[in-house]
């Protein structure tokens, strides 16, 4: 963690604070309370803008975030202009309630159905690793707030319109599941504004005793987008949180996530893929804290970096002294496809108690020559074999997406990053 005292306010931080002063008066209390915004300003000023020399930020393309023309939120798009300014919406998911947010603001048109109840909950006390979340707390204009009792299925679409180009959007999602409730949640980030644009999302999850959340996350923003998402989840006793994350869009992306397994028997399954090409940068930092006995983590990451892309994943699992009987498994794998590509995987298990099961593995490299030879020995040409093996590499996570429509969207998105996969028709 960076030492706040050592961090001098940078030029970027000055710009952020100036932009905030310019818009603060018109930001709605309903999305984030005035106190919470003020707290975020203080915290960000205290920690400062991240630097590449900070351990948890060294792989983030900070320049892309610093190059955002304005940090103030985009002006809401009048509903009449939406069809022109917002990209086409994906087909509705059967059985799901859809909530549509354009440039971070809720749309109540035909595409959106019943309203969720907004709350004014302040964001958690973000550590330095998650300071982009503070930006969202400062500037957010709206919030998708879900409090679930019983069983529900909700799709939240966050679209960035062409009108937001050159500005910033602050999607905000708060989910609270009451004890023994269940939610299937699809969170998608879409849109390709034609100029550099910041999308800075903040997601807060709170699961009550025995609650179950299946969270499908698809980030498919356009190449001019600098995308940051900050996620904070807390799990009570016997709660279960499953994340299936697909990061394929944006020119530069950063995920900062923290999951706290606070109650006995709480379980996290985090399975993610990132596929980058061109000069894309995908950086993710996930910290899981086992704070109670018999808690479980399963963490799987698969990343492919093609051309000159850079992909990084930091997986830190901390098992506290008060969490005997914990079980943590971590499998991180990276595939370097491009001559100028880079993958950085950082597994870290920190165990402060006995009686735990823990295993981790991280490998980065090229395609497995044994698998390649097997396909060649069946007469498959080299380029097809490469494409098939790349597709297979992502298979662990893609197959774990148990919603057919979401898996299809994830597969199509991933295949779009791997043109040779599309060419051979592996996507069936």
């Amino acid at each position, binding site marked *: 963690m960076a030492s706040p005292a050592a961090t001098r306010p940078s030029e970027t931080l000055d710009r952020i604070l100036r932009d905030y002063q310019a818009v603060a008066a018109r930001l709605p209390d309903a999305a984030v309370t005035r106190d919470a915004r003020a707290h975020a300003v203080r915290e960000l000023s205290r920690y400062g803008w991240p630097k590449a020399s900070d351990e948890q930020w060294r792989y983030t393309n900070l320049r892309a975030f610093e190059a955002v023309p304005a940090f103030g939120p985009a002006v809401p798009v009048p509903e009449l202009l939406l069809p022109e300014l917002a990209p086409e919406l994906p087909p509705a998911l059967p059985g799901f309630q859809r909530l549509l947010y354009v440039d971070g603001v809720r749309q109540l048109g035909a595409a959106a159905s019943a309203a969720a109840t907004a709350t004014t909950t302040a964001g958690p006390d973000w550590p330095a690793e998650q300071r982009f979340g503070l930006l969202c707390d400062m500037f957010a204009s709206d919030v998708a707030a879900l409090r679930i009792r019983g069983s529900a299925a909700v799709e939240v679409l966050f679209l960035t319109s062409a009108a937001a180009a050159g500005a910033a959007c602050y999607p905000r999602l708060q989910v609270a599941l009451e004890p023994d409730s269940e939610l299937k949640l699809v969170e998608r980030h879409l849109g390709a504004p034609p100029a550099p644009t910041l999308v800075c999302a903040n997601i807060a999850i709170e699961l009550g005793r025995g609650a179950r959340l299946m969270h499908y996350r698809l980030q498919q923003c356009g190449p001019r987008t600098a995308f940051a998402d900050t996620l904070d989840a807390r799990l009570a006793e016997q709660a279960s949180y499953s994340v299936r994350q697909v990061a394929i869009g944006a020119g530069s992306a950063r995920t900062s996530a923290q999951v706290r397994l606070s109650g006995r028997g709480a379980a996290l399954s985090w399975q993610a893929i990132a596929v980058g090409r061109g000069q894309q940068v995908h950086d993710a930092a996930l910290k899981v804290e086992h704070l109670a006995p018999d808690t479980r983590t399963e963490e799987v990451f698969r990343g492919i970096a093609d051309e000159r892309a850079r992909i990084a994943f930091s997986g830190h699992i901390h098992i506290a002294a008060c969490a005997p009987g914990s079980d943590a498994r971590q499998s991180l794998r990276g595939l370097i496809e491009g001559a100028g590509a880079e993958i950085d995987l950082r597994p870290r298990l920190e165990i402060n108690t006995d009686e735990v099961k823990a295993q981790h593995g991280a490998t980065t490299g090229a395609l497995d*020559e*044994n*698998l390649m*030879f*097997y*396909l*060649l*020995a*069946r*007469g*498959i*040409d*080299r380029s*097809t*074999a490469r494409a*098939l*093996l790349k*597709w*297979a*590499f*992502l*298979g*662990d996570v*893609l*197959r774990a997406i148990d919603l057919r429509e979401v898996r299809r969207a994830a597969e199509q998105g991933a295949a779009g990053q791997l043109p040779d996969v599309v060419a*051979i028709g*592996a996507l*069936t």
Partner: protein
Amino acid sequence: MTSAADPLAPPLLDIRDLHVKVGGQEVLRGISLVVRAGEVHAIMGPNGSGKSTLAHVLAGRPGYEIVSGSASFEGRDLFALAPEQRARAGLFLGFQYPVEIPGVNNAYLLKAAVNAARRERGLAELDAFEFLSVVRTKIRLMQIDESFLSRGVNEGFSGGEKKRNEILQLLVLEPKLALLDETDSGLDIDALKLVANGINSLRAAERAIVLVTHYQRMLDFVVPDYVHVLARGRIARSGDRTLALELEKRGYDWIGEQAAA
């Protein structure tokens, strides 16, 4: 000899004085072997004698240094062809340890492999319907459940299932030369009979089979025309099936001693 081969026919596979190194060590030290269409050869030998190396070198596995010698397949220089070209030309390697490729399903692999070979022969590619009708008969022969087609290649298969899958691929691809590297290893007697049945169904005048094996028992079911014993990277002895029976009784040591002498 039970060979269906024409002794005057040109060789399908012609290996001459082949020397191969792996990691700087000479593993094959002057192999010469002629295989004609219609013949079944068994290559036997103790562990480390070079028999699997021979099969993999012929199929084009990287990591081997061909020091000298030659191998031709239907008159073409085999070593000038990439592995996939050798396969499409009609050379099939059955793996001792077939790899698992989750995420690539069996049907996709089989169809792509069949159509690659058909393109090479100037034949029209099979469409999905034609492919299925071909593959279904072979699946039944190998007693494999049809649901396996939609599963990942060898994903979660037992050792025996992997070997059956190798033979299924062999049956569907109908190569001119099948090199089967210890296909019998790890099989119980029922699986061995099933695999042998599959191999025997493919015996034909236009096709040759080379069985690489450590044990004689496979040869009770797939009876070879010729048996060759490798020792220290050379063919130490060749004969007919009775040689395999002799090895069963006496082991490999006496061959090794002769080779050393």
